[in-house]
């Protein structure tokens, strides 16, 4: 029994590492701009389809395809913010929600037109199927372990950037007070572009990992958004490690729930999310320093 629960917790933590990849970008964008990007999940699907194209056309492995996909999404994030979202910044909460919701609908339908609704996957080779046997009843897959390690490394990198560099400090100052940041010589609009670019770079990794874990289709983005959003709320809005903890909590809740019945997997996650909203709306780690 104890072993069984231990196994569920371990699998849940690994699942949480996967969710953290989705949630980190959402949290960053919220922390810097106070907007929720409703197209965040769909953009992870876009990243996965980019990987499909690159792997098919250039016969790249999934590892080789990852970097170009990250760069593509980074550029899309910068362009999206510069060309569209910067126009509606500072005009209240409704407009960014409506615009990104519209964007989400457009992305889903364009993907349907181009790729159809047939599920596809990314070939990950031995990495996606193999695993390590920890004991008789506990084994962990290479891919989930790699995913968790990747998310810790990326979040650590992001935090180091925000804390230690001139650009990172400018991001945090803009997050605190964008008008005063301008008085320091900071172009806040450029900072918004940078934040969105970083967020989509992270979601690119999430999308590619997702494609290796399981098959995906154009309509899957909304599910990804819900989990990411729940992780952000559980962890505390605008805190990177809070979001990471929130993602782990969500993963463990879903894993434990799935032991009761498959239907309970999602339900348990939603229950933790709602309980947090009811009893501790500031999240596990409310915004402490910077983003």
């Amino acid at each position, binding site marked *: 029994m104890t072993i069984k629960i231990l196994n569920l917790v371990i699998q849940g933590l690994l699942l949480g590492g996967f969710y953290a990849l989705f949630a980190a970008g959402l949290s960053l964008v919220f922390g810097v701009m106070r907007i929720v990007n409703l197209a965040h999940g769909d953009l992870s699907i876009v990243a996965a389809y980019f990987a499909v194209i690159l792997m098919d056309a250039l016969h790249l492995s999934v590892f080789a395809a990852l970097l170009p996909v990250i760069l593509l999404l980074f550029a899309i994030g910068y362009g999206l913010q510069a060309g569209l979202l910067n126009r509606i910044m500072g005009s209240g909460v409704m407009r960014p929600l409506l615009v990104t919701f519209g964007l989400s609908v457009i992305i889903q339908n364009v993907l349907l037109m181009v790729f159809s609704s047939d599920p596809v996957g990314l070939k990950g080779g031995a990495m996606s199927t193999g695993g390590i046997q920890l004991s008789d009843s506990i084994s962990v897959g290479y891919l989930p372990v790699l995913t968790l390690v990747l998310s810790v490394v990326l979040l650590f990198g992001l935090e180091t950037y925000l804390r230690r560099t001139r650009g990172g*400090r400018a991001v945090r100052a803009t997050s605190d007070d964008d008008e005063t940041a*301008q008085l320091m*010589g900071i172009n806040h609009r450029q900072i918004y572009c940078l934040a969105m670019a970083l967020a989509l770079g992270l979601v690119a990794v999430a999308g590619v990992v997702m494609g290796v874990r399981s098959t995906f289709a154009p309509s899957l983005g909304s599910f990804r958004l819900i989990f990411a959003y729940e992780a952000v709320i559980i962890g505390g809005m605008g805190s990177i490690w809070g979001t990471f903890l929130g993602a782990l909590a969500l993963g463990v809740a879903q894993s434990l729930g799935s032991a009761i019945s498959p239907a309970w997997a999602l339900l348990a996650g939603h229950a933790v999310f709602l309980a947090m909203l009811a009893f501790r709306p500031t999240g596990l780690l409310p915004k402490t320093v910077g983003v």
Partner: protein
Amino acid sequence: MTLLAVSGLDVFYGDLRALSGVELSVAPGEVVAVVGANGAGKSTLLKAIAGTRRARAGSVHFQGQDITGAAAYRRVKMGLALVPEGRRVFPSLTVEENLLVGGHLAKDPKANLSRVYELLPLLVRLRGRMSASLSGGEQQALAIGRALMSQPKLLMIDELSLGLAPVVVERLYATIEAMKQTGDLSIILVDQNIARVMNIADQISLLLEGRVIRHGPTSSFSKSEIVKGYFGA
């Protein structure tokens, strides 16, 4: 040669006229005090010069260059700095990080940092503290230090002593006096402390309901005239 020349400046908040036809000029090394009642438009004037408020008419020239339409962040590069009303330190950043953000465009922020620590030594022992935890006076010192990090030619300070203890105010004025002595920094000062303002300012601009009603050397103003100015009479 004037450093800053504001001419015919109109600024609106919606339909409300905050400034109308304001003229102001500042020479290099000069300290100009802007005096007026609450709502006379002092903060609006500083914001319009710094670029966070747009002018509807008129112009702002800095070092002979028309900067009326320039974004606030570009004006910093030219040598303008504003210590905003209410200090507005970045609460989630440490004291030293606040200063480094102030030196965002500086080529060598570390060198500026040591100059600022020299001018405002109380910041040295606070350098690792979160700025939100500082007292009002410490925050004001930090806000001034942060503005100096960009090595401005013109420093604007909005409500220097508002809400601060007299002993703190005294120290801040001593710092301003020291900056004035260097001779290469011009200052526009907005403050309610009449005696100190009259002591430090070379020129005074009296603002009433968005208009400059009198501008001249400090010696040409009587104290009662300034007092009346603060009450908007």
